[in-house]
C-alpha cells in the first residue's frame, strides 16, 4: 500500500479522503491556494504544499504545480477527489508519466467516456440502452435540424464535451432549433474549447438513477447498487438517496447488470458511476459515466458498509477486489443533502464570508462531511459546497425524519445557507411520497419562502443580545429609550 498520498483537491472532499488515509496509516499531503491557507483540509493533512494564487487556474487546476508538489513531497499516489482535475485526462496522463499512480481510471478511459458521443457508441455496442439520438457530433445546424426531425421533438441538444448542464438546451419546435444550437455551441466552445453538439430525445419527467461500480486491474467488476439523484437545481444534484423509491428488484438487477457491462465495455478501472435516466414507463437509458468518486458516494457507504475511498486505494495499489457481487447486500436507507453557501431567499445568490458559529448535528445514523469551521472565511473563488449531511436509518421514512432532525440541529451562522430550503423539501408531501423527478424543484418549490414560525423569538434574541452586550460583563448600563406602558403593567399575561 502507498505510504503517502497527495490529495489534489480542497474542501470537504479533501478532508473526507484524508480521513480514510489516516485510518489506513497513509500519510497525507494537502495542496492549497492563497485563499485556503487556513482551510480545514490544510489543517487535517500531515503536510501541506502551497500552490499559488486563489484563481483555480493558478492553483488547483495547474497540472505542473500539482505534479511538482507530488514529487517534492514524495507522494506515492495522487487522489484527485471530484471536480477540478478529477476528470481531466491530461492530469491522469501527467501522473502516469511521472510514475505516480493516479487514483482513478486511466487517461484513455477518462478521455473516451468524456467524449459523450463516443461513450454512447461504446455503450450501444455493449448492449447498454442509450437515449434515442445521435452517436456522432456536428456543428452543422442543418444536419442537427434533420436529425431532430428523425428523433422527434422535443429534443435535447448537448455539447459533446459537456457536463454540468453547460451547452445544453431543450428544443420543443423546429423554429427554436437554429438559435438554440448557436448559443449552445458558443457556450460549449467557451466552457470546453469544443463546440460540437449532438441531439438526444428529450424524456419527460425522468428520474436520475445511477449505479456505483468498482473495477480492479484484474478485470473484476461489481456494482454497489443505485443512488437516486433526481432532485436537482441548475442541473446540479442537491439531494440523493439509496435505494431509489421506485426500483423493483428485477429492474434493479437489470440496471446493475447494464452498469457492469458499461464498465467492462469501456475498460474501466477503479471507482466510477454509471448514470441512467429512468422514464415513467420503467425504461432506462445510459446517460454518462462519471470517472471519479461522486459527491454522493457516502450514501452507498452507509448502506453497503464499504469505504469507497479505501477500495479506491486498494485498486490503485494493484490489489484485487476482495468482494463478489453476491456479498454486497445493502441494508436500510440513506440520504444525503448538499449544504451550499447560497441565499435561498435571494435567488440562491452565492454567500461567501466568515462562518461565525458552526455546530454540527450528531446522534444515531448522522454523518457530516464538512469543509468549514467557526472562524473560517468561505472563499469567493470556489464551489459553494460547505458540507454534505448524510443520514442512514432502517426505512426511507425513518431516514427522512432523521434528516429533518439533523438539519434542524445544524447551526451555521455568519453566512446564508440552503439549510432552511432543504428542510422544507424533506418535509414536503411530494418528497415524502417519493415523487422525485428531475423537475421537482421547478414543480414544487418555485415560489419558496422561509418558515417564519420562530421570527418573534429571533427578534427577541436580537434584543437580548443588545441588552447583554450593553450590560457587559461588569456593570449594568442604563437602558436607553423612553418609558413604555409596559412599565406600569401590573402582571404579565400571554
Amino acid at each position: 500500500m502507498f505510504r503517502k498520498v497527495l490529495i489534489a483537491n480542497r474542501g470537504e472532499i479533501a478532508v473526507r479522503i484524508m480521513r480514510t488515509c489516516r485510518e489506513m496509516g497513509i500519510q497525507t499531503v494537502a495542496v492549497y491556494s492563497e485563499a485556503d491557507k487556513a482551510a480545514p483540509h490544510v489543517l487535517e493533512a500531515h503536510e501541506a504544499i502551497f500552490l499559488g494564487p486563489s484563481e483555480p487556474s493558478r492553483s488547483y487546476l495547474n497540472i505542473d504545480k500539482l505534479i511538482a508538489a507530488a514529487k517534492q513531497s514524495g507522494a506515492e499516489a495522487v487522489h484527485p477527489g471530484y471536480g477540478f482535475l478529477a476528470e481531466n485526462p491530461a492530469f491522469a496522463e501527467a501522473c502516469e508519466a511521472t510514475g505516480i499512480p493516479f487514483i482513478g481510471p486511466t487517461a484513455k478511459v477518462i478521455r473516451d467516456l468524456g467524449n459523450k458521443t463516443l461513450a454512447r457508441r461504446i455503450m450501444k455496442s455493449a448492449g447498454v440502452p442509450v437515449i434515442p439520438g445521435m452517436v456522432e457530433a456536428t456543428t452543422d445546424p442543418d444536419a442537427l435540424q434533420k436529425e431532430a426531425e428523425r428523433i422527434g421533438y422535443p429534443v435535447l441538444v448537448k455539447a459533446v464535451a459537456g457536463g454540468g448542464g453547460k451547452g445544453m438546451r431543450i428544443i420543443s419546435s423546429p423554429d427554436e432549433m437554429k438559435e438554440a444550437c448557436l448559443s449552445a455551441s458558443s457556450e460549449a466552445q467557451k466552457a470546453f474549447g469544443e463546440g460540437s453538439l449532438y441531439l438526444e430525445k428529450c424524456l419527460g419527467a425522468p428520474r436520475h438513477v445511477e449505479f456505483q461500480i468498482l473495477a480492479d486491474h484484474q478485470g473484476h467488476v461489481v456494482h454497489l447498487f443505485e443512488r437516486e439523484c433526481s432532485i436537482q437545481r441548475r442541473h446540479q444534484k442537491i439531494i440523493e438517496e439509496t435505494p431509489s423509491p421506485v426500483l423493483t428488484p428485477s429492474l434493479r438487477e437489470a440496471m446493475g447488470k447494464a452498469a457492469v457491462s458499461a464498465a467492462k465495455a469501456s475498460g474501466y478501472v477503479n471507482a466510477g458511476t454509471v448514470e441512467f435516466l429512468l422514464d415513467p414507463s420503467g425504461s432506462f437509458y445510459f446517460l454518462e459515466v462519471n470517472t471519479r468518486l461522486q459527491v454522493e458516494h457516502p450514501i452507498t457507504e452507509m448502506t453497503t458498509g464499504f469505504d469507497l475511498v479505501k477500495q479506491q486505494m486498494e485498486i490503485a495499489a494493484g490489489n484485487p477486489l476482495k468482494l463478489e457481487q453476491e456479498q454486497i447486500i445493502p441494508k436500510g436507507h440513506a440520504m444525503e443533502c448538499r449544504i451550499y453557501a447560497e441565499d435561498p431567499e435571494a435567488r440562491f445568490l452565492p454567500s461567501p464570508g466568515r462562518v461565525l458559529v458552526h455546530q454540527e448535528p450528531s446522534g444515531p445514523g448522522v454523518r457530516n462531511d464538512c469543509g468549514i469551521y467557526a472562524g473560517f472565511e468561505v472563499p469567493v473563488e470556489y464551489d459553494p459546497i460547505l458540507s454534505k449531511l448524510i443520514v442512514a436509518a432502517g426505512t426511507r421514512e425513518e431516514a427522512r425524519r432523521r434528516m429533518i432532525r439533523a438539519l434542524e440541529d445544524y447551526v451555521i451562522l455568519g453566512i446564508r445557507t440552503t439549510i432552511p430550503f432543504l428542510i422544507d423539501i424533506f418535509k414536503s408531501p411530494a418528497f415524502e411520497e417519493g415523487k422525485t423527478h428531475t423537475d421537482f424543484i421547478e414543480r414544487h418549490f418555485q415560489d419558496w419562502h422561509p418558515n417564519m414560525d420562530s421570527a418573534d423569538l429571533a427578534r427577541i434574541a436580537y434584543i437580548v443580545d443588545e441588552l447583554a452586550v450593553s450590560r457587559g460583563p461588569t456593570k449594568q448600563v442604563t437602558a436607553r429609550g423612553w418609558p413604555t406602558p409596559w412599565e406600569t403593567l401590573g402582571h404579565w399575561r400571554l
Partner: protein
Amino acid sequence: MKYRLKIGESTAEVAVNTSDEKDNALFAIGDKAYPIRFTPASENCYHLTLDGKTTRVYVARGEEGKFIFVKGCAYLVQDADERAIQKTRRSGMDETPGEVTPPMPAVVVRILIREGDPVKRGQGLVVVTAMKMETTLVAPWNGTVKAINTAEGAKVAPGDILVEIEKEGKDHE
C-alpha cells in the same frame, strides 16, 4: 424602548421593558407579550425561558445584522432604523437599482466598458464571479461612463460602486 427589526421583507416593532431583575424583560410584538428570562450561556449562545420552557438560541453579529438561530431556523435580523441610516450613507444592494454594485461579495472577471463610453440602460458593464457563478452588472439608465472604480481581479462587495454612470441629459443629484 422600542426596536424595529427586519427579517427578510418583514419588519416588526418590538417593545421591550426591562425590569429591575437583571435577567428578565417583557417583550411585546403586535398583540403578543413575551415575558422572558435570559441567561448568556456562552459568547454566542443564550438560554431564553418563556413559561418555564427554556430554548437555546445562537446569536452571531455580522456586518449586515445579527444571524440568529432559533428552533432549527436561521434568520438574519436587522435593525430597520440602523439600516435606513446606513442606506443614506452607503447604497444598499437590491433596493437601489441606480447603483452599479455587486449583489454579493465577488471577484471582477471582465470590465466591458471604458471611461467616457456612452451606455444604454441594461447594457452590461462589469462581469463579476462568486463561487463559480457569473453575474453581469448592467447600466441602470442611459448615460455616459464617468468613472470606473475597479479593476479585473479585484475583490468587491455589495455597496462598492464599481462604475459611475452620468445620467443622460440630467445633472446628477
